[in-house]
């Protein structure tokens, strides 16, 4: 039997759709209601509550914790002081991405880290090899994680704790909710205003109930993983297993990607100034120096008129309602040659809010500049058709509230 999260009694009671999925061996709801759109719009219109417990969770502590993470993680851990969180990734020696995750320094020299795949043994082996005095614990089962995301997220959480209000984007703090200690970070996977809460498993349902109560006047909606994934494309956030895969389980290098190929060059903007010795550094430096990236990851905004045209010409209505796909779609270079393969899209959604079909795609560098036009292959009544798509800087959707200060004025009702 799959495991259940500590929120399961609440999730089960609310799962009207009766659909379940497996995520890392846990039972999770892909959606609660019959309307995916209602869940999706909770993220953009009111406030949503998502159980993201199946993530693997690690606690790294000890005198060498920072030195260890500085070696293992590709992004500079020095940028993660106490009370800060950081989106990061870790690579193998060849500079291929093993995983991405969020790390936060919760206390002086104590870090918490999320990961989509197990990494305990990998970290322990690395720690042993570098002789680091560090303790790495798997605390996956000790905590549940809830994501409270949406424009009303602050108005909900401030009813339960004042600690969240001063948090800047990617800030983290300990807080008390219903007399239970939780860790609150201003992070999320939706690209909206929001918080993530690490909650001790035994406190899970108490905190869930408190959030739902506080959210009642704000149309709080528990959401499943599908609505989240629709929002994350708008936010330009990559998903391991869809937009890239761990190099650890690849068969060939074509299945491995470097952080630069994933569009994360911003993680290495100060590489020439810092002397960091992290795993994969020399490969990444060489890739930067010699411009050997095989492709990069970009956003594609599909031309609305062209999308409309190919379906209309086939005599059908274009699918725009609740479309989310992780299947590979080919991308072609536009020009005199037909079907001139250039790359592929790895995620696709028809954004209801932005009224545009969106994709995350891999393209060669010469096509990757914003404004470049390419053809995206869609299947229209069982036949392949090309539609015009335009390379667009991600995120596609980036509301000011995501990073705005939450003071009295912003949080006021």
């Amino acid at each position, binding site marked *: 039997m*799959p495991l259940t999260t500590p929120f399961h009694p609440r999730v089960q009671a609310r799962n009207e759709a009766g659909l379940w999925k497996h995520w890392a*061996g846990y039972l999770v709801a892909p959606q609660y209601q019959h309307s995916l759109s209602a869940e999706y719009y909770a993220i953009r219109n009111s406030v949503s509550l998502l159980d993201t417990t199946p993530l693997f969770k690690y606690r790294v502590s000890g005198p060498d914790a920072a030195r260890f993470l500085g070696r293992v993680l590709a992004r500079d851990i020095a940028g993660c002081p106490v009370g800060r969180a950081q989106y990061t990734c870790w690579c193998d020696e060849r500079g291929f991405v093993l995983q991405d995750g969020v790390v936060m320094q919760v206390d002086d020299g104590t870090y918490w880290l999320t990961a989509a795949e197990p990494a*305990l043994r990998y970290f322990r082996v690395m720690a042993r090899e570098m002789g680091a005095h560090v303790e790495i614990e798997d605390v996956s089962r000790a905590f549940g994680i809830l994501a409270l995301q949406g424009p009303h997220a602050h108005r909900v959480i401030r009813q339960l704790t004042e600690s969240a209000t001063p948090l800047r984007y990617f800030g983290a703090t300990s807080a008390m909710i219903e007399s239970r200690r939780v860790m609150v970070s201003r992070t999320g996977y939706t690209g909206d205003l929001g918080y993530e809460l690490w909650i001790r498993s035994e406190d899970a349902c108490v905190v869930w109930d408190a959030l739902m109560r506080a959210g009642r006047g704000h149309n709080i909606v528990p959401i499943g993983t599908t609505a989240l994934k629709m929002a994350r494309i708008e936010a330009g956030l990559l998903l391991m297993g869809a937009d890239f895969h761990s190099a650890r389980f690849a068969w060939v290098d074509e299945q491995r990607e470097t952080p630069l190929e994933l569009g994360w060059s911003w993680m290495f903007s100060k590489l020439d100034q810092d002397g960091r010795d992290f795993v994969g550094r020399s490969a990444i430096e060489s890739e930067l120096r010699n411009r050997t990236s095989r492709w990069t990851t970009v956003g594609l905004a599909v031309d609305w008129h062209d999308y409309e045209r190919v379906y209309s010409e086939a005599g059908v209505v274009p699918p725009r309602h609740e479309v989310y796909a992780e299947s590979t779609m080919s991308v072609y270079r536009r020009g005199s040659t037909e079907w001139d393969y250039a790359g592929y899209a790895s995620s696709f959604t028809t954004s209801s809010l932005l009224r545009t079909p969106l994709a995350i795609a891999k393209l060669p560098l010469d096509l990757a500049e914003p404004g470049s036009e390419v053809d995206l292959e869609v299947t229209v009544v069982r036949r392949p058709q090309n539609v015009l798509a335009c390379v667009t800087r991600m995120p596609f959707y980036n509301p000011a509230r995501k990073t705005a200060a939450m003071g009295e004025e912003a949080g006021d009702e």
Partner: protein
Amino acid sequence: MSDARRYDAIVVGAGHNGLVNACYLARAGLNTLLLEQRHLVGGATITEELVPGFHFTTFSYAISLMRPEIVQDLGLVKHGMMVLPLVNTFQPGLDGEYLLLGPDSDENYHEIARHSPADAEAARDLDHIIARLVRALKPWMDRIPPNSRSDDPAEIAALAELKGWYDELDPEVRTMFEKFRTRSAAEILDEYFENELVKSLYASSGIIGSRCSVRDRESGLVWLFHKLGEYDGEPGHWGFHKGGNGGFTQVLARAFESFGGTIRLNSGVARVRYEDGRTQGVELADGTVIESELVVSALDPRQTFLRLVDPDDMPEDLIGHVRDFKFQGTAAKVNFALSDVPTFPGLEGREDIFTGFTNLGPSIDYLMEAWADCEEGRVSRRPFLDCCVQSTLDPDMAPAGKHVMSCFVMYAPYHLAEGNWETERDRLGDIVQETIEEFFPGFGELVLHREIVTPHDIETLIGLSEGNIFAGELFEDQLFLNRPAPGWNQYRTPIEGYYQCGSGTHPGGCVSGGPGWLAAQQILGDRQA
């Protein structure tokens, strides 16, 4: 006496490799006769209804290495081939602990993580690198190996290709390959795992059918060998054929007859007839002579070179290698008819735990203690058992609600220090039953019937020398370029028209059909040349 008919080809021995070989020859248009000494085809791959309604896989009991190309070439599906996937693997401990692994990798992660999260993660790494290695090795499983003793430019080129392949292997894959070649299963596993249940689950593949312990370097390659198969393309996965493994050889027999081949049962071959280095046919045990210029031995190398022909007519070098070829069988079978599935304390009523391999051997120490007895020339007092209750998947194996349980036993040395296999037979049965009882209390009360198959039985009933289930040990000096002897690893023999196609040739043991298939390629190629 002589058979009036004259055949284009005679295949000696209707084990699965003999059947596969005969199928390919008949399919190519050769009038082919398949001779079997017993009353049924299949060799070590048979199912027998020893008690009404209970179908026993007397010898081999599961399938994985079967070459997918053979299934396609011979159209085996239309003749009834159906392999059921093993669902679960159950590894019980003696302390109430257990590992129950199934088809979902995330569930398996959490199941192993109950014992060790680090091991659960390591299992993914290990499974992946083994899968990559197996994929890299597949081309060499599926071709006639090069001849290391030949001056033929084609053979020299093939050896160069082999070297080139090795040099171009992904470094990670090559490193793993070297580990399997040079290290024991236990040594490799120490690198990956800390938990004994996990280690021993993997390690037991390294001793199956082989006279070695999990700490002997030979166990690395034996383990790898058992991972070289697949189920629906999933590397290393196993299945049960419908109706037991004998169901599979019945499929092959039907395919052979559909190609126009003739099967003759109860027809043991006394010798192969040849003159001036050319094959003339065979003489059966009853003196019947059957003529053919092409004879293929599906028997093991000892039978092929020391019994069916006069070793004095063979090159000394070859005979020397065959005499030194290690058989030294160490495996036995005890098969049960049961009134119900056994009960594991804490998992009462869970029939699903038996829908795959059940491994009794919960620690490296347990496996080493079993080995210590073998070294002394004794049956292990607490043997490693690989058990399959096939009737949990295939209801036609036993009457409704009742079950058959196949138990593969390590170690049962062919050469006993004291006594003989007639005096030790029942003791073997008792030891196995007592061992199962330790893990599954109350087991004895479920036993309706038991069949004991000693290494001696394996030799006398189906002709595998010293009861070696692979027709010779799967040790590196007996594989690939050296199976069964350097220079004689390409299915030919010193006698023109006399070939070998048993598991004592490449790619070796298990129900792979590879030897039969590759030998047919060689034979048909030689006829065209």
